[in-house]
């Protein structure tokens, strides 16, 4: 039996230390829960002599990381999951029923089952360390809290707040937790035990949890006290969840159901419903896929390459949307940032967007006023290339023109030291060509961020022909420091993500040419699970930019990627998308994105007839070329594994995580079917659909992307 807990009596208090041996974090595995039960039974016997209990973790930056992922992964029938939940609930019920106060003394991350354990305690105190936070991230893995979290949390902090925490899995940091009433005190780490002891010695009346003025801040507080009010709250939450997840994720709705049930049928029945629903969720394909993506994410985040250079500052050439986004990110992560742009007005816009970003975080209590000032103070700027001699990294984010990029590289080359890494954020131009006039081209590489920088987690680290391994290593480590998921890609046109997105956008445009409505295509994509439709995506990226990338890919990769004439036509009439107010859709300040009834008339010269096609047909037209292109990328070694394709498409292009990634999805279709469908499409629509050799081989041998995967990334 695993010995995870040790108990120590100090005077009339029992101090329980959680320290799971051999692990970096504390996990509530099945046998760990057994160990906890053993301790609780011992405490029950000592009810006369013990006045209170403190539970704390011996791990430096973690209280409890939650349940064991492997155990959940291995649940293959509903009753298994339900049993697991029931067992956990029973242990935590024992904890909650102890006749004396129990305090969870939290330092570091408190996640999932850990949070549920803390909720079963009478009090929670938390340190003000930056790593301290509380969350119930179960829904991100396709499941719901199963150890009573759906029942105890709303009863502690109110239904609306609990719904928000549980259905989004968002982290709650100490100050906010105190304000919400989720914890009873926030203290410096040295006072954690003092605080816990104080909770026991001076029993709290509960008044301290009622945040002053909460009625004024939330005048609808009374709603959750009456059944009709509660049903309003639940309906609103369900609507919000459906809108947000497009019905693809069952877990948040299941969580709401468990909470609602607990209010209408009492806590005991609520717990039982929670256990049932956990069992149901744990066996879903969505959950299995999400856990797979989580593991993939962990794998790609775990960069063990040591950085060749320690990077302290970054200089951005250009101050557009990308420049501003990267500047904000870098400044937030503690780097000195220098922005260089010929137009001071542009720099001003970047500084303003940084200030606005920091202001929003301040409002959310995610940063203090002083931290906000620190972040802003890290940025310097100039209207000419000056003051870059001591810079560790220069990253250009100027317009996508090779000549301009080459000349700015040549210029910057003279101004920086020989060790400075010279990087481009280009989305499709050749890094190797850009490096031609640079003195030490081995320090030139691509570092391709995605828009919006603060939301998109992917970074493509582009290795040019002459880029050294040391440079790539530094950039992989640097990307991690910025909190991004780096994927190393070869310097081929469009790298990985844009190269795969292009055939997808292109096919959408071809469908438009064939007479399919813009909205029909986009609806199909939304119901597939894409965060937005293909046309909406082009509008967001900018049709001019999409067209430009398209031309680059066509030039570099040939006929297969010949762009639809629609993009060019739209660009020529200045319909650039969202930024110009008009693209495939119209953009209204008030109404947002709306369909343009005149679009087909405007493009009449390109549109032939009226075509009807079902959702499945649209999916095939858009995703099969994407899969096919991914196969070409693997053949060419743009990336070396299907995992890299999947992680990049999920975190760089918003490919639905519940499908596990593009090539996981391909594997569920089967190479056989993909190849035969592609061949059919090739017959009807041309050679661009001819399957890649890799796919054809798979179809012939019965392999799939993940079974043929050789070696490790």
């Amino acid at each position: 039996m695993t010995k995870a807990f040790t108990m120590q009596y100090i005077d009339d208090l029992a101090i329980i230390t959680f320290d799971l041996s051999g692990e970096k974090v504390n996990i509530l595995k099945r046998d760990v829960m057994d160990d906890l039960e053993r301790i609780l039974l011992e405490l029950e016997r000592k009810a006369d002599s013990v006045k209170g209990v403190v539970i704390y973790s011996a791990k430096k930056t973690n209280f409890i990381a939650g349940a064991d992922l492997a155990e959940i992964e291995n649940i293959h029938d509903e009753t298994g999951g339900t049993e697991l939940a029931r067992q956990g609930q029973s242990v935590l019920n024992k904890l909650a029923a102890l006749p004396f106060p129990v305090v969870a003394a939290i330092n570091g991350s408190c996640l999932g089952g850990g949070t549920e354990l803390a909720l079963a305690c009478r009090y929670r105190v938390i340190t003000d360390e930056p790593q301290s936070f509380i969350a119930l991230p179960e829904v991100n893995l396709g499941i719901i809290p199963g150890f009573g979290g759906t029942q105890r949390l709303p009863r502690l902090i109110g239904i609306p707040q609990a719904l928000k925490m549980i259905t989004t899995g968002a982290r709650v940091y100490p100050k906010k937790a105190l304000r919400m009433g989720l914890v009873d005190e926030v203290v410096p780490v040295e006072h954690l035990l003092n605080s816990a002891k104080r909770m026991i010695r001076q029993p709290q009346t509960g008044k301290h949890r009622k945040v002053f003025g909460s009625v004024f801040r939330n005048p609808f507080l009374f709603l959750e006290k009456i059944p009709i009010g509660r049903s309003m709250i639940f309906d609103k939450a369900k609507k919000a969840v459906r809108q947000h997840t497009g019905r693809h994720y069952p877990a948040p709705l299941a969580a709401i159901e468990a909470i609602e049930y607990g209010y209408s049928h009492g806590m005991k029945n609520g717990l039982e419903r929670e256990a049932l629903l956990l069992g149901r969720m744990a066996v879903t394909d969505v959950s299995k896929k999400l856990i797979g993506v989580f593991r993939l994410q962990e794998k790609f985040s775990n960069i063990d390459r040591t950085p060749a250079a320690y990077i302290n500052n970054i200089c951005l050439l250009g101050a557009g949307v990308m420049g501003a986004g990267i500047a904000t990110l870098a400044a937030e992560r503690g780097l000195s940032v220098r922005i260089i742009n010929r137009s001071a007005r542009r720099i001003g816009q970047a500084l303003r967007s940084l200030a606005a970003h920091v202001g929003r975080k301040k409002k959310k209590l995610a940063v203090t006023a002083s931290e906000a000032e620190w972040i802003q103070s890290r940025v310097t700027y100039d209207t000419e290339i000056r003051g870059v001699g001591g810079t560790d990294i220069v990253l250009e984010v100027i317009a996508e023109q090779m000549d301009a990029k080459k000349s700015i590289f040549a210029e910057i080359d003279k101004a920086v030291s020989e060790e400075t890494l010279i990087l481009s954020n280009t989305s499709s131009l050749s890094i190797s060509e850009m490096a031609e006039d640079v003195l030490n081209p081995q320090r030139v590489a691509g570092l391709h961020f995605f828009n919006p920088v603060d939301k998109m987690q992917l970074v493509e680290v582009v290795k040019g022909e002459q880029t050294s391994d040391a440079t790539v290593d530094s950039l992989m480590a640097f990307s991690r420091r910025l909190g991004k998921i780096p994927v190393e890609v070869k310097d081929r046109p469009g790298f990985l993500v844009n190269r795969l997105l292009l055939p997808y956008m292109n096919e959408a445009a071809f469908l438009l040419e064939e007479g399919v409505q813009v909205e029909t295509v986009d609806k199909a994509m939304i119901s597939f699970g894409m965060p937005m439709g293909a046309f909406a995506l082009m509008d967001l990226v900018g049709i001019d930019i999409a067209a430009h990338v398209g031309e680059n890919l066509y030039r570099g990769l040939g006929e297969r990627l010949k762009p639809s004439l629609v993009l060019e036509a739209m660009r020529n009439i200045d319909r650039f998308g969202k930024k110009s107010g008009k693209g495939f859709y119209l953009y209204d300040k008030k109404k947002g994105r709306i369909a343009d009834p005149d679009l087909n008339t405007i493009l009449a010269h390109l549109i032939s007839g009226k075509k009807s096609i079902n959702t499945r047909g649209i999916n095939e037209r858009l995703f099969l070329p994407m899969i096919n292109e991914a196969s070409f990328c693997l053949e060419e070694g743009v990336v070396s594994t299907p995992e890299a394709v999947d992680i990049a498409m999920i975190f760089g292009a918003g490919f639905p995580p519940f499908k596990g990634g593009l090539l996981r999805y391909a594997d569920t279709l089967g190479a056989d079917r993909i190849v035969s469908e592609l061949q059919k499409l090739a017959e009807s629509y041309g050679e661009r659909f001819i399957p890649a050799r890799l796919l054809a081989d798979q179809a012939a041998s019965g392999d799939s992307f993940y079974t043929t995967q050789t070696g490790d990334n």
Partner: protein
Amino acid sequence: MERIAIVAGVRTPYIKAGTHFSECTAVDLGRFVVSELIARTGIDPDEVDSVIIGNVAQPVEAVNVARVISLFSGIPEHVPAFTVHRNCASGMQSIVSAAQSIATGEAELVIAGGIESMTNIPFFLSKKFQKTVTNFQHSHRLKPKLSTLSHLRPADVIPKIGLLLGLTDPTCRLNMGQTAEVLAREFGISRESQDTFAMMSHQRAISARNEGNFKDEIMTVLTPPKFEKAVDFDNGVRPDETLELLARLKPVFDRKYGTVTAGNSSQITDGGAAVLVAGEKAVSKLGLSPLGYIKDHVFTGLAPKRMGLGPSYSTALLLERAGVDFADIGLLEINEAFAAQVIANEMIFASDKYSEGHLGRKAIGSIDREILNVNGGAVAMGHPVGSSGTRLVLTLLLEMQRRSVDLGLATLCVGGGQGAAMLLERS
């Protein structure tokens, strides 16, 4: 002794108080220049041994403003910082203190700066008001609380303007403008000659700008909180200034008989400047290429009511100490606190009679205006008091480079009756 180099420097535009920098604190102005200096010199902030900032109206919310600036500029926590105050020579004092700490072996590389946010000099409430508030807080019952308040009179809550208090000498009870009037009277300096001098200051500043002389000196600042306005030049400089316009202004400090006007005085201004000071060892270790070296400096005292004569007193002493012939000085910066005050100094420099009377020596030598304040001065650009000393040294060194002048002098009058002078050499 190790020679002390000024490696590089930068300043913000000098901006009239209450205009573009009105939302910038003294700390902001300081971090603008210090972080820009770090970027432009390319030094590793870790190599800096000390940060010294001159500042006159030290902000109450950031006492030891140098430390606050240092940290917000990205200089590591282990690097110490302190603030110096010698009124209008605070900026120069920071350079001298830097040089001294290098000379004693305490430091090798020092950032020295001068900053002033005259916009943010607070208003003060009366002593009586302060007492009332304290008593109010200390009494615990309602009745005594109310009775405390009842003693307050309307006049007690009228604020005193800190800026005016600061510009008034507490020993002779004259404000700085009045000390300029003293010199104008005693030296018989006419209104016209003061206005002509002021006109020259503006014209020189404008043509210096047009020739790009400030390109390396002044950084562009995007002004918070909206960052919509980019300022890259001193907004006190008036391109449309004429003698007629100057003549129309009323005297400020002696309304009946005075000659000192807002037009021929320096302006109330916000701004910051910083230079990198290094010992020779650091220069060769880090491969720096300095603008020039400090040859010698002097601070001296004189009658507070004639504080404007500080340049004469300090220069006389400095030349003697350094054994330098005035004729060898190729370029001069005398801070233009007031046109009258600069002219009075010119008269002492040129005349045996005045020199005898004030300095007890023969004339130093007459100043050729062709080498005096060639890029304009504080009358045009403004005088953020704690910053001007730094600017003078920086602007002098940059002009010495342009003109290939080997020896230059920067000197200031100092409120309270002091003079400051520094000799700089190019190699």
